[in-house]
């Protein structure tokens, strides 16, 4: 069975500047790949190239085994690629009723409206069929958007930050529905997002677009275990990011944290000498203790069921957030550090 989508060596230009180089990605039917990357990293441009709205500078794109663009003579127009797309801002046609929005996409004229209504029903918005999109809530509009995308009987589903305009509760519900849909229909889906929750709930694999390249394409659990870049680490839920000095201590590296020197297993000469960004898991990496690295608590706030203390350590430019179970005391405190839950990344990316 051929891949729902396969891109090889794709380069994307915007305004005469190369923004994506040598991108390669393959996704199977029934698989959802979340394409993440910082703002302006070229995610949407890459998606537009896959959709055929823009042409790649180099490379080949296959959809369901068919070459749709080889950056040369072969170019299959977007309307012939068999796609369904869900947009961040819904992009429902404002002058058409909800039913028309879905029906117009269905190719077979026979029983069009019945089929459209069935799809709307599937997403729980059949009662809105006669209304204009503007009269619907955001969640309802995105449900119509999903129904429309499926109405096109696509071979590949493309989602461009589909939940970012929705409230938290609607996001949660729709994520689950979308996941079920992908699994049940066996559709390949590529979804742009920078929300860790989308990665957790939707992604079979995560592709990261960083520094013009698709740096990794891995499963979410692999990304959580070994985040390859600071951006991946943050997506995985790590916090911090303060710059620390690293010294060599035997075969290990050691970071200078206030007055203490903490060994980081396995770092060694690779890390020593350079400034590194310190990221750590919010839970278990740093904890207030009776004794340990001396620090000063400058304040605290309550966040998502925990107290978060802000600590200043000698030699660090920025304060460090530390989770604790009760309101921390102001002033001098001690910090216990679990060095296996720390991650160091070069503070300025190479190249």
């Amino acid at each position: 069975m051929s891949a729902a989508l396969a891109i090889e060596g794709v380069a994307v230009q915007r305004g005469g500047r190369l923004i994506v180089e040598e991108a390669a990605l393959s996704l199977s039917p029934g698989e959802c790949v979340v394409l993440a990357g910082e703002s302006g990293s070229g995610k949407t441009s890459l998606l537009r190239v896959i959709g055929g709205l823009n042409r790649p500078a180099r490379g080949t794109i296959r959809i369901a085994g068919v070459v749709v663009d080889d950056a040369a003579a072969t170019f299959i127009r977007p309307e012939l690629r068999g796609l369904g797309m869900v947009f961040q801002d819904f992009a429902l046609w404002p002058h058409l009723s909800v039913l028309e929005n879905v029906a117009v996409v269905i190719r077979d004229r026979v029983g069009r409206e019945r089929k459209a209504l069935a799809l709307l029903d599937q997403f729980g918005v059949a009662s809105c069929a006669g209304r204009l999109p503007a009269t619907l809530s955001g969640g309802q509009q995105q449900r119509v958007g999903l129904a429309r995308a499926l109405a096109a009987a696509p071979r590949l589903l493309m989602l461009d930050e589909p939940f970012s305009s929705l409230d938290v509760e609607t996001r949660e519900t729709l994520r689950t529905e979308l996941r079920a849909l992908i699994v049940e229909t066996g559709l390949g889906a590529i979804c742009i997002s920078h929300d860790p929750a989308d990665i957790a709930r939707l992604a079979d694999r995560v592709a990261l677009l960083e520094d013009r390249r698709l740096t990794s394409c891995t499963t979410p659990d692999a990304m959580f275990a070994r985040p390859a870049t600071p951006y991946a680490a943050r997506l995985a839920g790590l916090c911090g990011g303060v710059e620390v000095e690293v010294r060599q201590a035997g075969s290990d590296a050691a970071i200078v944290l206030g007055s203490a020197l903490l060994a980081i297993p396995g770092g060694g000469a690779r890390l020593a000498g350079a400034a590194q960004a310190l990221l750590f898991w919010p839970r278990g990496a740093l904890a207030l203790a009776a004794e340990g690295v001396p620090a000063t608590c400058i304040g605290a706030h309550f966040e998502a069921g925990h107290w978060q203390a802000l600590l200043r350590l000698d030699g660090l430019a920025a304060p460090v957030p530390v989770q604790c179970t009760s309101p921390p005391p102001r002033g001098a405190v001690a910090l216990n550090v679990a060095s296996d839950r720390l991650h160091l990344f070069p503070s300025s990316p190479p190249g």
Partner: protein
Amino acid sequence: MKFGAAGLRAAIMAGLIATFFVYPLVRLLVMPFLSGHGAAGNWPAFVVSLLLSVGTAIIAAPLGAVFALFTTMAEGPVARAATLTLWGLFLTPSYMLTTGWMIIFSSHALRATLAGQAFFGVGGLLMLYVVKALPFSALVARATLAAADSAPAEAAAIHGVPFILRVRIGLRLLAPSIAVGFAIAVIETMQEFGIPATLGVTSHVPILTYAIYQHLAETPTDFAGASILCWRLIAVAAVFGGLAMACRRQGAAIQHGRMRPPARQRPTLRRELAFAALTGLFALVGIVIPVVALFVRALQPLAASMPHAGAVLRSLGFGMVGATMSLGVAVLILRLRAAGARRMIAVLDVALVANMAVPGLVLGAGYIVAFNNDFLPLYGSRLLLLIGYTAGMAPLALRMMQGALDDLDPNLVAAARLHGLPRLTRLVDIEGMLLIRPFTYAYLLVAAAIMFELPVSELLYPPGATPLGVAIVTLDQMSDYAASARLALFGLAAMAGLALVLAAGVTLLAAPRRLRPA
């Protein structure tokens, strides 16, 4: 970049621009050099026109800025009435405005008064020019202001900057708008043709555009002489156009990325009253008085016949077909831009800016010279008149369509393509319907502009097919104001009829099918 459909379109467009813009202009403008015509005379018409234009701009630009400021900052009925008045002034053809006032001063008693004497001299010209220039400077200033940010002014207020300094900050924000308004007012007044053409010889002030017209369409004809005068007209447009662009750039430099348009506020009663008086004055002078004069004279059963009655429907037809052609060209150009043919975009931009500097009068003159030969024997045909209208109106059509497209969410069009909608469905049901309101608005505006167009019509109308503007001005010259007023009013009624029909059509088209789910 591959040479495909876009390349073909670009080539066609380049061919059209070369044939119907560059070639006729070059033919006209090289005439003095070829014929060795040394008639460098006619300086009085140039000097007087330039002085009048600058004088008009000195009055119109600050007033325009005030109008712009008030209509963007203030809320309430007066601000709305002011916006309406500006558009009314903008849309009223200058020869109708002039005809209305000439009707008033056609009575000997009024003509003999000081006001009457002034009307047929510099005073009258200045009044009519200011009325016509105001909407241009106000709308241009408004565009510059609308792009301005309220943050600097608010920041100054919050941080307790002294009042004088705050006024200076405000003025600095406003200065580019006034300067651009000034430059536009000079150009528009310099190029204005309807007012001098209607006043004709009854006004004893030499005007450049009318002098050009006289060289071309009255005996004895003198194309080389007209060409020299055209050079001067274009030179003024170039100088002040450059000034406007420089000011706009200056204006843009003090704007920045994330901007918040100034919040509308209800003005103080005193300010509102003062502004209501100003708006009322312009509405009265520019719209109410001339239109009432037209009505009253049209109702006089002096001569029940209506010569040139066919001109109304004929010009309506010209307007409809011409607007279709202009918008067609605009859409073609916009598609070329979207396709990103870079060199083509540069050529188009130069051609567009140049087209704005070249008034219809000069273009028409170029057409007479260029299209009266064995290769392109178009002069005297209705087709050339239509092409002239199209070339003249394309920039307006383009600006309006560009605005409409800028407002259109590109994802709506992308969604239609990605979901595999057939081309016709996309064109009619999606893009067409999404753009239909701004498109209709642009269509009506361009159709009206062509229907009431004067300079191109005067120079290019085929014998036996007198356009409306020419008919009205001809009747004015024969002092048959009753017939000319009737013609003007019938013309307005016909245009209103077209607007109504199209509005009804749009409502019918754009209405969603509100289906009751089974």
